[in-house]
């Protein structure tokens, strides 16, 4: 392959190396996720004051918004990994793309349910077919479509290619979710947090939100590494390095 890619990256792409690498990093990512998550929960549920308009109901934001960001972030990762897998036929990129899908679907599901639980007391309805909610629901169906298509094929690599293609087409929905509150009239509020510029949120409320966002990022890394490791064992079942692991774990 191209010689501009550093050697260590080539090596990391090999299943046994990635298996060890991910195994070493996964516990740290999970520890950080739990630690940051606990701090964010304390900050959001205990330290942050009640909102002057929404009272304590606004506290759903500390899980709703990070989950919504993860639902889009993971989709973008899945799209990029699928593209790499389709163009360069890298096995690890396929694994990353396909193992991201269930985690992304989980976060999308959380976003929809927590949003519904927030919408009922604030808007007076569990659900409305407006742009933000509908495009997020489409995102869930895209994730489920990718998972379903992947499992519909007898040959896993063929399935990963077909599902990767669907994932790439679906990337178009990510900006639609993000900008839907600006492009259409909607019940859903606009962004409160702004990366470039002033956020419309008090610091007492902002730091737990950002900390939880970081926690969900680390959680994704940990979960993806666990899933990818298991998937590599399944995929490479005939190889020597997997046999050694199977025999070692039988002794324990």
């Amino acid at each position, binding site marked *: 392959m191209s010689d501009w890619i550093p050697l260590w990256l080539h090596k990391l792409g090999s299943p046994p190396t990635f298996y060890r690498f991910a195994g070493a990093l996964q516990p740290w990512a999970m520890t950080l996720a739990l630690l940051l998550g606990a701090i964010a929960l304390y900050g959001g549920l205990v330290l942050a004051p009640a909102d002057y308009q929404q009272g304590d109901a606004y506290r759903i934001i500390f899980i709703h918004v990070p989950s919504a960001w993860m639902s889009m972030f993971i989709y973008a990762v899945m799209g990029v990994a699928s593209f790499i897998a389709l163009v360069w036929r890298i096995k690890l990129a396929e694994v990353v793309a396909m193992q991201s899908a269930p985690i992304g679907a989980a976060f999308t599901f*959380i976003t929809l349910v927590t949003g519904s*639980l927030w919408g009922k007391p604030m808007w007076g309805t569990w659900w409305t077919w407006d742009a933000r909610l509908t495009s997020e629901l489409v995102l869930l169906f895209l994730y489920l479509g990718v998972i379903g298509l992947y499992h519909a094929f007898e040959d896993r690599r063929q399935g990963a290619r077909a599902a990767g293609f669907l994932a790439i087409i679906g990337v178009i929905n990510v900006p639609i979710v993000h900008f839907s509150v600006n492009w259409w009239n909607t019940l859903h509020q606009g962004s409160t947090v702004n990366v470039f510029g002033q956020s419309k949120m008090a610091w007492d409320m902002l730091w737990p939100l950002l900390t939880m966002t970081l926690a969900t990022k680390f959680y994704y890394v940990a979960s993806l590494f666990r899933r990818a490791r298991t998937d590599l*064992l399944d995929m490479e079942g005939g190889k020597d390095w997997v*046999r050694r692991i199977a025999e070692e774990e039988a002794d324990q």
Partner: protein
Amino acid sequence: MSALQHFFAMGGYAAYVWPAYAVFFIVLIADSLAPGLRRHRVLRELRARLARQSARQQRHSPPSAPSA
């Protein structure tokens, strides 16, 4: 009302806030347990396959040959 009761009451929104947090944790706990269960199953099936293979090899090898 005690401080703890006050906390759990969530200003009257307890019926919305706590289920939202419950869903968040239940879904993520399920997600984090899934790969461990699959790993267990994959390795068990692989060991069973390896055992079948080695049994077949022993049956097909001539009786005079020393077993590996």
